[in-house]
């Protein structure tokens, strides 16, 4: 049922190139989910999230100091190795220091016809952020119009917003089904679905999800869900790891991470000023750790997810060297602990020692099952 998503995710480059040929539109590679995709969509640009390939490489050392996260180096390696040569443009919306290096090195050494650095504000908890970002989006919109030669109208934006909101609602609906005592899909399937969403045309993706949403209630996969878990992290697309966890007697029923729910959780609410409406969505969305201050808004959100999806434990998938997430982890684990949810902390690199992690995961699951017995 989820094969199409896996196909899109595994053959992401072929998909994008085929899309280009078919539609004649431009493809924009982007780093960071704060990029306002709706504006790109309204200019007939396909935004594709740049992710790594989980292979060891030796090409980024001259460009990025080894103490920055493996993910940003893996992303840059894809560019340096020519795997994304079909991109017409690259852009980033300002979030963490690490990933912006992938953008700035890519821009210099593999330049595209268009590149853009959007100064997405960090102080999203301030009322001043909205007018500021709206102003930045006005400039961004003009730059995209000049690049593509397409005019971005209010109608175009309305259309894009509707398509994106529709896509988000479908994702949320499918996620809601995971609240069931017997979730009809695995965390691995959900991950394929969400990752593929970040690299395909939204309408196509929604079309596929509509089919899946129809079929899921009667799927009856007869699978013992085992222990209900959530995963929390920065950027995660370690499908192999998720598979290992779920074949060890568990199901991942919900997540809170960059390539997961943080990408799609919030919709654009309508406003007269379309750019302001889009800006509001990105400011009010579940935040990346870099933007979650002065108050910790991630914590009540995580606790609510854990409650609604009836989670027994959480795996904190810490990307090695990811400072922003490391700054949140202690507080998050404490809050989960106080709410009676045990956490397993694992550090991730480009490749993972599946065997060693399996030992830890199995011990964690055993501990959680034992607790069930005595509840």
């Amino acid at each position, binding site marked *: 049922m989820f094969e199409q998503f896996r196909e899109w995710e595994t053959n992401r480059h072929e998909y994008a190139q085929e899309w280009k040929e078919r539609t004649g539109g431009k493809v924009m590679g982007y780093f960071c989910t704060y990029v306002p995709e709706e504006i790109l969509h309204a200019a007939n640009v396909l935004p594709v999230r740049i992710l790594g390939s989980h292979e060891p490489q030796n090409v980024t050392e*001259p460009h990025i100091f080894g103490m920055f996260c493996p993910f940003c180096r893996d992303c840059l390696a894809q560019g340096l190795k020519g795997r994304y040569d079909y991109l017409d443009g690259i852009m980033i919306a300002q979030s963490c220091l690490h990933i912006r290096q992938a953008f700035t090195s890519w821009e210099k050494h593999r330049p595209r016809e268009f590149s853009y650095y959007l100064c997405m504000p960090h102080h999203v908890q301030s009322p001043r952020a909205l007018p500021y970002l709206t102003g930045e989006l006005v400039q961004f919109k003009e730059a995209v119009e000049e690049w593509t030669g397409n005019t971005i109208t209010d109608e175009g934006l309305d259309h894009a917003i509707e398509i994106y909101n529709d896509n988000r609602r479908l994702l949320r609906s499918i996620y809601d089904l995971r609240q069931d005592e017997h979730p009809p899909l695995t965390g691995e399937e959900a991950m394929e679905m969400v990752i593929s969403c970040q690299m395909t045309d939204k309408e196509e993706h929604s079309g596929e999800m509509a089919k899946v949403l129809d079929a899921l209630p009667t799927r009856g996969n007869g699978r013992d869900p085992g222990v209900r878990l959530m995963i929390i992290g920065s950027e995660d697309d370690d499908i192999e790891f998720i598979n290992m966890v779920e074949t060890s007697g568990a199901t991942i029923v919900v997540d809170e991470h960059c390539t997961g729910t943080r990408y799609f959780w919030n919709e654009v609410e309508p406003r007269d000023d379309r750019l302001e409406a889009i800006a509001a969505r990105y400011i009010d969305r579940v935040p990346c750790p870099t933007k979650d201050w002065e108050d910790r808004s991630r914590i009540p959100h995580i606790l609510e997810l854990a409650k609604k999806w009836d989670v027994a434990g959480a795996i904190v998938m810490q990307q090695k060297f990811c400072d922003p997430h490391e700054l949140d982890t202690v507080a998050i684990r404490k809050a989960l602990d106080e709410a009676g949810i045990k956490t397993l902390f694992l550090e991730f690199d480009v490749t993972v*020692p599946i065997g060693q992690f399996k030992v830890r995961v199995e011990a964690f699951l055993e501990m959680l099952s034992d607790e069930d017995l005595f509840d």
Partner: protein
Amino acid sequence: MITAGIDMGAKTIKVVVLRDGELAGKSIVIAGFDNRASAEEAFAAALEDAGVSSDDLDGVVATGAGRKSAPYSTRDVSEVGCDVKGTIKRYPNARTVIDVGAEEGRAIRCNEQGKVLDFALNEKCAAGAGAFTEAMSRALEVETESLGAMSLASGNAVPMNAQCAVFAESEVVSLLHAKTPKEDIARAVHDAIASRIVSLARKVGFEPEVVLVGGVAHNIGFVDSLKRALECEVTVPDDPDYIGAYGAALAAAEEG
């Protein structure tokens, strides 16, 4: 003119004696706890091999990690400098020297005059040296010497984390438990080190002729991995561990 060069390496001490620029004698000794005593031992053996006494020497230069505690030397020159001197004398077309020793990997770029243009050394996050192969051999329960041949017998590239030595060791254990053939693991280990070394080489921008020196150059598995990762030919001297000491002896002759 008779000169000597002492390379006080982390694991071994090498001494080379030159007579009028030609190799007259050499010796290699495992560095003991008292590395000065080991150096004296190596020095004596090299002199005997050359059939000279210490009074015959016109100059002695020391290099290597422990060069400050070398006996007999009148001055010291960096490993980077000696590597280049030794290499360019033998291979005048050498433009990149890669030295992989027990504890340190280096990539050096030089010009035809043997001037060092740029150099890079392995940093904190590195599975890029000989000590790593020793640790991996232990994990695989084989002799370090046979690791090279074992990896050549593999036809399979198994990806292994090349960034962190601790993570990599974890992965070897995982692979063993997953019944991965030892040959494939051995190859993965060499590929991982080669990847680290090539990262260093890219930092200085490598160009042919690339010459590989240092103890790990004896490891045919590593040499194979390195050639594949660099995508170019690599020249390996017959006595790669001695190039540093050779360069030091040449430096001693320069002073006159």
